[in-house]
């Protein structure tokens, strides 16, 4: 997959309450959830972002609650992918299971500033900062995760068995 978008960069430990506050969790409708994406860390995120844009976090992105509503909101908002130095484990699983592309790369995060234009090639495992011209390589997903992707996600994988 190929993505290109403007970067919205945040700090360490962005938690799922900031991504989608619990006060909006009385629904699981992706469209309703998406309206409030990143609301408690960046109130105007939904006004500023355009479909295809990219969220970049430092370490431990997505910590806290297990709510899958967080990656659902990000995906439905039109964010193409999330890049971080590390992801909290439940958030990482959730992204994989529901299909929000995420990439782990400390070098890329250090080499990307807020507002940069970034291109991501998940097949080649490349992150290109178009603003600075720098390219970063990303380690491929573990073999098991690739199997899940090939099957079309966890539910399809399990249903087949």
């Amino acid at each position, binding site marked *: 997959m190929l993505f290109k978008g403007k970067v919205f960069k945040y700090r360490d430990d962005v938690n799922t309450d900031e991504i989608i506050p*619990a006060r909006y969790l*009385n629904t699981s409708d992706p469209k309703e959830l998406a309206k409030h994406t990143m609301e408690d*860390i960046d109130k105007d995120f939904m006004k500023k972002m355009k479909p295809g844009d990219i969220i970049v976090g430092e370490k431990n992105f997505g*910590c806290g609650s297990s709510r899958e509503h967080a990656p*659902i909101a990000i995906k439905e908002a039109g964010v193409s992918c999330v890049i971080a130095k590390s992801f*909290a484990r439940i958030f990482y699983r959730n992204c994989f299971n529901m299909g929000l592309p995420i990439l782990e790369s400390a070098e890329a995060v250090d080499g990307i500033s807020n507002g940069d234009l970034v291109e991501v090639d998940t097949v080649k495992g490349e992150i290109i900062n178009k603003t600075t011209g720098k390219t970063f390589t990303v380690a491929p997903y573990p073999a098991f995760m690739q199997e899940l992707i090939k099957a079309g996600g*966890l539910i399809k994988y*399990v*249903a087949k068995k």
Partner: protein
Amino acid sequence: MGMTITEKILAAHAGKKEVRPGDLVWAKLDIALGNDITAPIAISEFRGSGAKKIWDKNKVVLVPDHFTPNKDIMSAEQSKILRDFAREQKLKFYFEVGEVGVEHALLPEKGIVTAGDAIIGADSHTCTYGALGAFSTGVGSTDLAAAMIGGKVWLKVPEAMKFVFNGKLPKWVSGKDLILKIIGDIGVDGALYRSMEFTGDAIRSLSMESRLSMCNMAIEAGGKNGIIEPDEITKKYLKGRSIRKPVFYASDKDAKYVSVTEYDASKLEPMVAFPHLPSNTRPISKVGNVRIDQVVIGSCTNGRIEDMRIAAKLMKGKKVAPYVRTLIIPATQAIFKQMIKEGLMEIFVDCGAAVSTPTCGPCLGGHMGILAAGERALATTNRNFVGRMGSPKAEVYLANPAVAAATAIFGRIAGPEEL
């Protein structure tokens, strides 16, 4: 080479003789849990997969506890999805308002989770059950849906960190303080992807309530699970309660840990986590003058009978400070009833505290005690992120029930010794 308790439980559930950190396994589950926020998505995915019947009607547990009794029409619709599904699938463990409690207090109390189990829950605090000597971890709704279909979960066997607490705990220092101390030391990702094993004579002396409270917050350090080896206290708690025969595992002497950290328990104090991370901790002696608008005593972390007894003992015969709201939320109906029996309800009401039916309520900013901009709460809950209890401009401080009780009386963060 030996295995840790976590590795042994995962090996047993993966049908293997041994597992090592980094191994990817499919583990058979004893229990899969969902609540009124996470289960609606799981149920929708279950239906979307074409599945008709769940894997085991005795092992999928649904607990509508977050926005119940339902706070608005939309949350009522979410709960209805659970209720309809429970009826259709003939679930043995679905708890209606009136018998529902906060999930991680309710499941151990009812004996639905036990030692040696492998458990997942679509709720991050599912790690609570490690206190019983089970492997238990939080997952998302899709993982729950997959478990509802096939009864299994994929897991990477975690590396383990050992935390040893030696010596005698001072009065008023509880499991909550031990885990806050650890989180303060290692940070909110200090145990990311790892198993946290708590041991030492101070842990052995902890009540089951205090152990549950400690393991509950393993996720706040990023941990995959928190776990305490079963002992006599565990066995006594599980006796006559467990619906399955418990299996007692222990870590081998030569099990491998990525780190071993030792603490002198006798030197610890009650801890307070300042906004806006559970790792932003200070001992009570270094808190300073922090005025408080609301105190919450409850949640899956500290809403158990021992917590209520501690708070009531300190608040008896006193009055909540002027302009301070104090909310007492017993985590289950059994705790609620026990509070009536022991006269704790009378103590709380007499001192001007509001007592609520069991609910997660304000802990996640759901309902029943939401904060306005600029307000501060001290809570016995588990998270103090921005906006966690209402306004993104409010603040939440975390502490144990003794500190919460003293804080309610003084209207500022205070230690129980001050009373």
